[in-house]
């Protein structure tokens, strides 16, 4: 599916946590088709920035606007995958996805086979390996049609093949007019992206 | 209206027959308010000392 054009405008964003200034005067403009990698050392505020953009943290100072509208109106068009598991260990792979997405079972199963979990839909998440659990959380990228993706450390615990699959999926997403923001420590090879370097504030 | 109700100071402190109940309560009141004053002052001193320590640390960093 092709998304309507979207513009994210961050202006003069400033954030302080535990008495430490993480960033200030942060202004970026993002448009449909762009990928932004948020980079920086540990504790530079990567997660904080992503969570603020996803509306999970309150904006301390500055503004975030989606198509000139406040963030609140756009929450349903955001797909956020944090670095926590995002899945319940005691439920099956399929039940986990069923709760978080409103898609029929065939679509879910095809998403699962896309992330290499074909045939695992009846397994409990706690029976899976860490990488497989991560794949289960990422499977939502294949079945939810939210234009704005905010992914915190999506590459963690993934093998080379899955990294390639994910890169391909992100490329496809932005080609359709989506936007993707992510953080990672190892820069991905097959992806064209801009980088926002955090951690240079004093 | 302002007439001392007790025959002597000793009778005042004895406050028969309820002195054992009345005086300790007032003692406690004094103790609580005085104690909290002391706690506040101590907390204030500690805060100042903490800022001082931070300042010293910053100075040694810079030099």
């Amino acid at each position, binding site marked *: 599916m092709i998304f309507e054009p979207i513009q994210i405008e961050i202006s003069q964003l400033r954030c302080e946590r535990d008495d430490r200034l993480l960033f200030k005067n942060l202004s970026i403009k993002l448009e449909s088709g762009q990928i932004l990698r948020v980079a920086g050392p540990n504790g530079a505020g990567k*997660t*904080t920035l992503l969570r603020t953009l*996803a*509306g*999970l*943290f*309150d904006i301390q100072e500055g503004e975030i606007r989606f198509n000139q509208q406040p963030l609140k109106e756009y*929450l*349903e068009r*955001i*797909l*956020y995958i*944090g*670095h*926590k*598991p*995002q*899945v*319940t*260990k*005691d*439920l*099956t792979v399929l*039940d986990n996805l*069923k*709760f*978080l997405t*409103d898609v029929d079972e065939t679509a879910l199963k095809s998403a699962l086979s896309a992330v290499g979990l074909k045939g695992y839909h009846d397994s*409990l998440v706690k029976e899976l390996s860490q990488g497989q659990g991560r794949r289960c959380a990422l499977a939502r990228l294949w079945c939810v049609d939210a234009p704005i993706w905010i992914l915190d450390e999506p590459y963690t615990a993934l093998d080379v093949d899955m990294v390639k699959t994910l890169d391909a999926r992100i490329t496809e997403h932005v080609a359709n007019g989506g936007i993707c923001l992510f953080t990672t420590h190892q820069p991905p090879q097959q992806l064209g992206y801009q980088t926002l370097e955090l951690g240079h504030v004093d | 209206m302002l007439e001392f109700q007790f025959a002597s100071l000793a009778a005042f402190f004895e406050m028969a027959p309820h002195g054992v109940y009345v005086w300790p309560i007032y003692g406690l009141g004094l103790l609580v308010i005085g104690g909290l004053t002391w706690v506040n002052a101590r907390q204030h001193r500690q805060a100042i000392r903490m800022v001082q320590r931070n300042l010293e640390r910053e100075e040694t960093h810079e030099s």
Partner: protein
Amino acid sequence: MSIEKRMLARELKLIAARPGDIFKPMWFLILVISMVPLALAPDSDLLAEIGSAMIWVATLLALLLNTEHLFQSDFSDGVLEQWLFLDRPLAWLVGLKLVAHWLFHVLPLILITPIAGLMLSVPTEVLIALLITLFVATPALTCFSGLGAALTLGSSRSGILGVLVMMPLFVPVVILAAGVLIRATDGSDTLPLLALLGAFSVVAATLVPIAVSAAIRLNIGGSN
């Protein structure tokens, strides 16, 4: 499927996956009740007199026990933060979760209280009154202990803090319920008190989810 249905379906599946969550509080309730005659005396008149109050307090404790960690695992798994992206106000989802919790976790607890009543030889008419008060009062109790659970989400070593914080707020409910039980023992009219108790539950069920959602949002905002 609507979010509401998905939520209830998930709750049912979680119960199937962790049946212990339901049985442990029931086990606790019966165990506490069987301690009473051991600590007092197996004198059935005495037991009948204090029995209904004992059952009430034991049920209250069991309820607190199983509501204490209502949001904990979803919070640490990061599932709770996904609720914010769902197409509904958080307070509504919280209310739904509380309803599901009451239906699947509190109701079974109420339904075994007659067994506890038999163990303490509580007279039938008092037992019926006891069941009715529990039905009417537990929604309020569930809401308040849910609030305790939500407020203490962010602190790693909270222990039973949520329970300690919320317990004083249960006072009106306990008093009204005890009033109903006394009147039932006397054989006088219990309806006005039950109506008050019901009103308390209704008000709590409408307002407390808002406070719970504020507490959850606050704790999500603070987790790194």
